[in-house]
């Protein structure tokens, strides 16, 4: 080992191996896989023959610890806590005995029920997918524990009570904890799912309560992120990527890099030149010393300004039809008043606080990966293909992710394959690929840039009679394994979602799409198409209300009479915000309502405009209907977080291209929301008995249009591009 572990200094710090043990203990179940020697890669994490594992999701130890295996990535959205709540509820477990552990990649056991055969996290599906599945898993375990107690105590199962992790029989006075019965429970037959009786919602003890989160260890450094993984003999790799998308290496000279202290190797891979060092700083300095001659003959040399011009031209022409109700063209021609606007939104980086990274080891047995994976089996399959392995030879150890917002669900497995190809060049050596913030900002997979052109018309009574919307931008789904699911008849649903299902009652409504082909890599970004469709549609609705001389809330409520959940959240947000009440001079109030991922969110934003032309978002009042509320505290924080994420895009962030080069590089020029810019936020959760839906994304779409509408109310200006700027 290097430096600090030289003989001279040995004993000053613990060895890397000891350290691994240390974090394993501190990180509890989350890091259980880290216990395993690498040679045992393919083996299960379960201790054979002792624990009670009634199904793929629950493991109860003789110590009474209840481990819930999480097929979904914990990236901050609280899914570990939400899913464990479902198990604990039906199991009648003691919450303090619950531990969350990332499940391995295995589509046969851990596929997302809403993604078909794919194991992955996205589309705010974790709770919707898991509501019945995890409750059933908990109920199964409970039934087997009860059967074990009945057998041991020789009493009828029907007389046994379970509460807070204790089984008891009142007539005989017997009681036992889950741990004491675990071995016997493991010998019971697994009950038929049909025989299980899930709880009546009236009896819920945990669902609906703000239980403390299970992703612990984030306050003391013991929680393990990919960036924290350190393995014996591990090298750190940094990659020099091409300066333009589509460029490739013509020639490179690594002599200076290889001579730099701590650099071990330089490897060419399809995505660039990788420098491997004993540590991050050595690899970084080595990368700075590379001399690379890039072949940019086929590279993309476009600029955002030119692309926008092209997009705007396309928006004047008919596109592929995503929705056609009535005859929008004729209705527009005969409308009394027509409102028209062209909207522009830029490319956006996800900019998770933890830049992209992955640890990979390739050896004769296969490949082992340590990563916070949003797309376990997509990556598993892609890695198997690139290495010529079977998927089951690719083992994925799940870690926490320091944010993701969609980025770690790359349909091309970009950064994971990059890590694996570097590791493949150094077989037997674990390699940690680290992207610097500059790499993360410039290597792409952005929320696509879009242009929307919308024309909408009112009749003489102020009723909307026509809506024509043309959307221009890159397709996220085309060319990916998801194309068949996402793209139908030339329409990428992720480009038009939120517009093609516009809920307002408008008799003549047409939505069209131009999918533009260019090589800037694009991907889903928290709330995907809704990020731009909510912006354009909710601003136009406000402008229609203004043209009709009607209140924006009343105008919407009338048009949403067929959509009770939209209607209810809008009404709630307006009431709680005291809609219509006087505001201080220079302030404005704006509203937006939008459904995404089957959750319904309305937001009222209040802004203040200063005399110097700057403005501030002061307050946001939000109502959310996500069905049955599992953990109100997590719902509230996810909605707050979605608002904060959306405000970054509304106020600050944009990725621009100049001659094919990304203009931004780090947080000084790709700005994100700061704590002093976060408004006061109120979140009101609608009471509901509907099955729960997701909250990770739906808080994001309404905030940009709500703020734009508030600014319009304050200034009279119109807003048609993000990030929002006032005219001077």
């Amino acid at each position, binding site marked *: 080992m290097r430096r600090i572990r030289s003989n001279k200094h040995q004993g000053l710090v613990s060895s890397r191996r000891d350290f691994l043990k240390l974090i394993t203990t501190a990180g509890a179940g989350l890091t259980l896989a880290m216990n395993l020697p690498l040679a045992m890669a393919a083996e299960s994490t379960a201790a054979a023959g002792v624990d009670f594992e009634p199904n793929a999701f629950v493991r109860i130890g003789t110590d009474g610890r209840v481990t819930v295996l999480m097929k979904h990535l914990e990236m901050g959205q609280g899914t570990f806590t939400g899913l464990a709540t479902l198990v604990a509820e039906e199991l009648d477990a003691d919450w303090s005995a619950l531990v969350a552990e990332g499940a391995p990649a295995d589509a046969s056991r851990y596929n997302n029920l809403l993604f078909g055969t794919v194991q992955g996290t996205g589309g705010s599906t974790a709770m919707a997918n898991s509501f019945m599945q995890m409750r059933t898993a908990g109920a199964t375990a409970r039934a087997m524990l009860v059967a074990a107690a009945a057998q041991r105590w020789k009493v009828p199962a029907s007389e046994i009570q379970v509460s807070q992790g204790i089984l008891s029989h009142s007539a005989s006075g017997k009681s036992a904890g889950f741990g004491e019965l675990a071995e016997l429970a493991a010998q019971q037959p697994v009950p038929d799912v049909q025989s299980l009786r899930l709880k009546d919602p009236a009896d819920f003890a945990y669902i609906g309560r703000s239980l*403390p*989160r299970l992703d612990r260890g984030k306050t*003391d*450094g013991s929680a393990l992120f990919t960036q924290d993984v350190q393995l014996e003999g591990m090298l750190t790799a940094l990659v020099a990527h091409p300066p333009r998308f589509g460029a490739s290496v013509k020639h490179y000279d690594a002599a200076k890099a290889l001579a730099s202290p701590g650099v071990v190797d330089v490897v060419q891979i399809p995505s660039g030149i990788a420098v491997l060092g004993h*540590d991050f700083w050595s690899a970084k300095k080595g990368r700075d010393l590379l001399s690379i001659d890039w072949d940019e003959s086929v590279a993309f040399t476009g600029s955002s300004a030119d692309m926008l011009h092209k997009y705007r031209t396309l928006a004047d022409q008919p596109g592929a039809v995503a929705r056609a109700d009535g005859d929008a063209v004729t209705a527009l021609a005969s409308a009394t008043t027509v409102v028209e606007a062209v909207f522009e939104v830029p490319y956006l980086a996800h900019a998770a606080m933890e830049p992209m990274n992955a640890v990979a080891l390739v050896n004769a047995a296969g490949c082992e990966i340590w990563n916070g994976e949003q797309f376990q089996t997509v990556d598993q399959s892609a890695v198997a293909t690139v290495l010529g392995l079977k998927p089951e030879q690719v083992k994925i150890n799940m870690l926490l992710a*320091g*944010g993701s917002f969609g980025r770690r669900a790359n349909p091309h497995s970009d950064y994971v394959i990059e890590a694996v190809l570097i590791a493949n060049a150094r077989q037997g050596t674990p390699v940690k690929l*680290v992207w610097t913030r500059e790499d993360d900002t410039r290597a792409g997979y952005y929320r696509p840039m879009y242009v929307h052109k919308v024309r909408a018309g009112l009749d003489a009574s102020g009723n909307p009679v026509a809506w024509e919307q043309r959307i221009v931008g890159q397709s996220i789904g085309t060319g990916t394994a998801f194309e068949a699911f996402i793209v139908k008849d030339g329409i990428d649903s992720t480009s038009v979602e939120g517009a093609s299902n516009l809920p307002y009652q408008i008799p003549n409504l047409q939505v069209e799409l131009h999918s533009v082909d260019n090589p800037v890599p694009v991907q889903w970004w928290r709330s995907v198409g809704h990020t731009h469709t909510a912006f354009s549609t909710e601003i136009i609705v406000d402008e229609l209300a203004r043209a009709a001389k009607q209140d924006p809330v009343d105008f919407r409520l009338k048009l949403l009479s067929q959509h009770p959940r939209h209607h209810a959240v809008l009404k709630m947000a307006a009431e709680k915000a005291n809609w219509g009440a006087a505001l201080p001079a220079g302030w404005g109030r704006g509203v937006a309502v939008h459904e995404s991922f089957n959750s319904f969110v309305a937001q009222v934003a209040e802004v203040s405009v200063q005399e110097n032309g700057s403005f501030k978002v002061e307050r946001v009042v939000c109502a959310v209907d996500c069905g049955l509320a599992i953990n109100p505290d997590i719902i509230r924080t996810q909605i707050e977080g979605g608002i904060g994420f959306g405000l970054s895009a509304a106020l600050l962030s944009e990725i621009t291209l100049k001659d094919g080069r990304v203009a931004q590089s*780090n947080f000084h020029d790709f700005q994100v929301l700061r704590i*002093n810019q976060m408004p006061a936020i109120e979140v009101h959760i609608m009471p509901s008995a509907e099955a729960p839906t997701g909250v990770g994304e739906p808080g994001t779409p309404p905030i940009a249009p709500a703020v734009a509408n508030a600014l319009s109310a304050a200034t009279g200006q119109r807003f048609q591009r993000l990030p929002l700027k006032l005219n001077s």
Partner: protein
Amino acid sequence: MKTPLTLTVNDRTHVLDLPAQTPLLYVLRNDLELNGPKFGCGLGECGACTVLVDGMAARACVLPIGRLAGRRVTTLEGLGTLEHPDPVQEAFILEQAAQCGYCLNGMIMTTKALLMHCPSPTEAQIKAALKHNLCRCGTHVEIVRAVQRAAGLRQDEDTL
């Protein structure tokens, strides 16, 4: 020839045979194996790497170790553990002030520094102190509450 440097981290002294310009963060993470301080931007722009140097918040990713002779560096690990947390860590736990948690090291260390010289900060002072620490998840509301709790300004309110 490099001259060995002495670095005091969490009350332990390390003698390091490293170039003086090596940024502290990489020494902490790679050599001293302290995972609390996080790599987020490498330019002192996000605050995820924040440590205390003689009680002042500092950006470890742009702080050369050669400038730390005779100074005391404290990392998140030096504050407390999950079982025995520092009052600031405890306040963040009680307020559930983490989503992904990657920024939290910086939030906690900056709060620690703030409360040492400003024990009862106003909300505006809290936001001014933390505005250079980025949080992408939007946990800002809970983070402000955690600072208030750590300062004893929220002790009577119910949490979980």
